[in-house]
């Protein structure tokens, strides 16, 4: 066991898999110099062939990774900040998500597309998106949004070994948070939610860094003897709906905490699933706690209020119980 940060977990997962499989390599802008701390020591140990600085050309990055993957490589592409996925959108949607299908199973595209989400820090509208739901809409992609360093490492290792394209959305707020990480290898499978806390009065499904908010809210609610169950889906595609539905069956109430905009969000999707398949278990409205549907402004006087907060989660849970 060792205490490691979320960033170290990313780095270690990548490092171990690169050691294990010589087809794994990393490409991205400024990966050689280890800008964010996810490629520490890698140039020394793997060289420039497997740690490749790219031009600022995101469509090219995605397409080159796809082509390499189709002939047997396993590229990890670091897109740095999530909105930089947008210039690569066509390659992700039309090539990466669809090639296996289009070519009747002849192609496989085992790429890992990593993107961090930096919001709440005054980087304004063009740099602050949390766009995973756009990718959830498209079949063929797998999507992970880990909530702590332990899950990150286990999921990232699974992602790199996956035969399908995986997108990893990494909340910058988690970068320096730590988990105890076992010395021995472990993998966390996709599509298996984790119950971060057991409870009986209300289910909170919380995505990524929102799990910590949910835990804090639960602590506060516990003082009022409200017992909250916290489900962390860990991966949004595939999504472990069974665990969510089971939890709602028990609690009868559902709050979904998602740092993305609300419209057509992961939160919307989870709500829609439960209000169909879990309808008869529901004893209260499903409440989404999401980011306000406005753009992210620069000023600190406007920005923080927009995001989910502990208080908003507490209020939402109370609403389901009122």
């Amino acid at each position, binding site marked *: 066991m060792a205490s490691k940060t979320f960033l170290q977990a990313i780095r270690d997962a990548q490092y171990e898999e690169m050691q294990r499989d010589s087809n794994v390599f990393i490409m991205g802008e400024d990966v050689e110099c280890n800008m964010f701390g996810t490629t520490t020591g890698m140039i020394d140990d793997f060289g420039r062939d497997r740690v490749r600085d790219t031009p600022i050309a995101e469509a090219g990055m995605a397409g080159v990774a796809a082509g390499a993957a189709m*002939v047997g490589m396993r590229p990890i592409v670091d897109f740095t900040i999530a909105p930089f996925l947008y210039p690569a959108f066509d390659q992700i949607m039309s090539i990466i998500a669809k090639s296996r299908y289009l*070519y009747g199973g*002849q192609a496989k595209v085992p790429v890992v597309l990593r993107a961090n989400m930096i919001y709440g820090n005054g980087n304004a509208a063009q740099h602050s998106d949390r766009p995973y739901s756009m990718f959830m809409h498209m079949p063929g992609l*797998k999507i992970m949004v880990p909530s702590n360093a332990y899950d990150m490492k286990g999921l990232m290792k699974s992602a790199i070994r996956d035969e399908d394209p995986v997108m990893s959305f990494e909340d910058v707020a988690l970068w320096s948070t730590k988990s105890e990480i076992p010395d021995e290898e472990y993998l966390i499978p996709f599509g298996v939610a984790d119950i971060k806390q057991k409870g009986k009065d209300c289910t909170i499904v919380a995505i990524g860094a929102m799990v910590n908010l949910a835990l804090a809210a639960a602590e506060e609610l516990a003082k009022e003897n409200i017992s909250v169950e916290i489900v962390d889906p860990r991966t949004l595609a595939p999504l472990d709906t069974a665990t969510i539905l089971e939890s709602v069956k028990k609690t009868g109430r559902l709050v979904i905490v998602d740092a993305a905009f609300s419209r057509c969000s992961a939160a919307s999707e989870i709500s829609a699933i439960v209000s169909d398949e879990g309808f008869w278990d529901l004893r209260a409205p499903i409440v989404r706690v999401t980011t306000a549907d406005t753009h992210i402004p620069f000023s600190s006087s406007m920005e923080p209020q927009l995001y989910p907060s502990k208080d908003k989660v507490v209020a939402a849970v109370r609403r389901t119980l009122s």
Partner: protein
Amino acid sequence: MKVNLSKDELAEMMRRMIRIRYFEDAAVELHKNGEIRGSLHTSHGQEGEIVGACMALRLDDYMVGNHRSHGHPIGKGAKLRGLMAELLARETGVCRGKGGSMHLADFSVGSLGETSIVGSGIPVAAGAALGAKMQGLDRVSLCFFGDGAAQEGAFHEGINFAAIWQLPAIFLCENNGYAVSTPISKTALVENIADRAAGYGIPGVVVDGQDVIAVHEAVSAAVQRARAGEGPTLIEAKTYRYLDHAANMGRDLKYRTDEEIESWRSSKDPIARFQARMLQDFKFEASEIEAIDAAVKEDVADSVTFAKDSPFPDPAEAWTDVYAPIVA
């Protein structure tokens, strides 16, 4: 680069060109009858550049095409049955009925997929070249794309990746003068698309796409460079498509004259031109060519019969291949 082609190779060139021509003739008929659904983009008139380029490759080299790529897998050596069955949406199609005309692919001959989003195959082809290079194989990757695709950002980014990493890639622009109805002169001021190569620090070559041997030589030189680790080449083949942008577009878009089409057909047809050379320069007998022709006709007919005799995919197959099969 002068390539010494054996008589067999010359015969094979002709064979592949007419395989494409007849295959697409059959496809057009089937589309007209409503037996092929969706869009159908044919390469009538472009067989020379396709075959000249593909035959410069080994079977284990890679190739990426586009919406107009029935001919490319054929040029690369694919069997006709799986291709025709794909056009006819059968379970025995190369893509098991999922891709259709705009998305043929035959991985068994290195055809990695003909993507119908214009320009999108260019970075993918660069990526296949990267894979080959990293794996220490001496394979190359050949990308076909149109003149219209050269205006897409993917062209710029994909070629630049290949250049900076000196990847074994050949980018072959099939300049048939038009993107749907839009002449290239309206969307690029540059005389030749190949002139853009200089902006990436790689060689650019213009070649007569109606001359299968000229294309073959140009691509062979690029392949040699690529295998030697000297990086990519941008080649532009000047060519022409005889038929509409896609079959059944409904009405005449009137962007080119009948005379223009006729002049290409009558004096620059790559098959007719090569046939003349076979007889004159390469000492083929007319009967030899006729034999090839007859055999191809049979092959194409066989592919249609095979396809028609094949079952349609089980409806449940719609849900497979979205993700890898789960292995227990």
